[in-house]
């Protein structure tokens, strides 16, 4: 091994590094739970906390695999580290968004607060794709005749997410250097062809049927053009 007998990347175990040790305990408990199905109350508690704190690792791995070449391997500690980073990211952004709400004496953290916090904390590159994603979500909600801004019904959520993944991935093509995707299905399949002529290659494949005005607003650099 290139680092010699000692696993160099893992520093000397430090009992005072509470997060790491707690993580290890929780993961062991979860593994026990998963393997044995014989649980003590303590195992249950640790498992519940583990589930509460992180995104499911299978989902994290799947997203990673979209980026990595087929031959790439991922070490377990890399998977866990990224899993932890995601939770830290959510907390980091939410903290900033929540502070803004408190300053403005509002009780509810909105999508706009989240986007604002992301921009403030340096994640500007995410704002446009997220805004497109959000607008499309709201369009779906609108099509179902519900009031905008209310929590999405399950069916619309299913339709939106299954379409959003394919179409949103296509929308990000220029940003994330993917080859042009023209094989998305369903709702956007027909619409995409009609909007090839739109200015701004960014939105070429992702423009929503019936919301070209909205999409144009985004393409013209008004990320919050349509949404309060």
């Amino acid at each position, binding site marked *: 091994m290139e680092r010699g007998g*000692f696993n160099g990347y893992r*520093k*000397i175990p*430090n009992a*005072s*590094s509470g*997060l*790491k040790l707690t993580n290890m305990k929780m993961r062991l408990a979860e593994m026990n739970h998963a393997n044995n199905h014989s649980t003590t109350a303590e195992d249950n508690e640790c498992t519940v906390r583990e*589930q*509460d704190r*992180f*995104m*499911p690792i*299978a*989902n*994290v791995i*799947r*997203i*990673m695999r*979209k*980026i*990595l070449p087929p031959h*790439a*391997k*991922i*070490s377990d500690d890399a998977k866990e*580290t*990224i899993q*932890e*980073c995601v939770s*830290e*990211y959510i*907390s*980091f*952004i*939410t*903290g900033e*968004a*929540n502070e803004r709400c*408190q300053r403005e004496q509002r*009780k*509810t*953290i909105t*999508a706009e*607060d989240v986007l604002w916090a*992301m921009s403030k*904390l340096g*994640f500007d590159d*995410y704002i446009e*794709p997220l805004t497109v*994603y*959000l607008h499309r979500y709201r369009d779906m909600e609108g099509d179902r005749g519900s009031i905008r*801004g209310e929590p*999405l019904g*399950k069916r619309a959520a299913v339709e939106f*997410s*299954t379409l959003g993944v*394919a179409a949103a991935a296509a929308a*990000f093509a220029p940003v994330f250097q993917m080859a042009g995707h023209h*094989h998305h299905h369903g709702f956007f399949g027909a619409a995409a062809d009609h909007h090839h002529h739109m200015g701004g290659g960014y939105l070429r494949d992702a423009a929503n049927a019936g919301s070209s005005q909205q999409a144009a607003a985004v393409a013209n650099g008004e990320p919050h053009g349509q949404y309060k």
Partner: protein
Amino acid sequence: MRQAGVYSGMVSGGRTGPHLLPLARIKKIMKKSGDNVKMISGEAPIVFSKACELFIEELTRRSWMVAMQGKRRTLHKDDVATAIVATDIFDFLVDLVSSGNSINPLDFSPVEMETVLES
């Protein structure tokens, strides 16, 4: 990306629905980010589900570049840590990937370590 991927990846062990990342889990993490987090709109976790996907993609991409520079085909935690340190907007993650020690005894010879401890 084919839609089959959306469903086959939903191995979250719960009834989360076919979102890329489970909204209820996102909401839980948001609530735990501070004592005074009160209410969360329905749309906020939706934004996060996509944002986290972008985040994972970016972190993975940068980490893989580090691994490639080392001519390795396995992504290690070290690669993630290096990518984090090298990226300004990932500063908030630096503590997460450090050992928790500001001094790693392995970095110093015994003589140097004595000096460090005495100072």
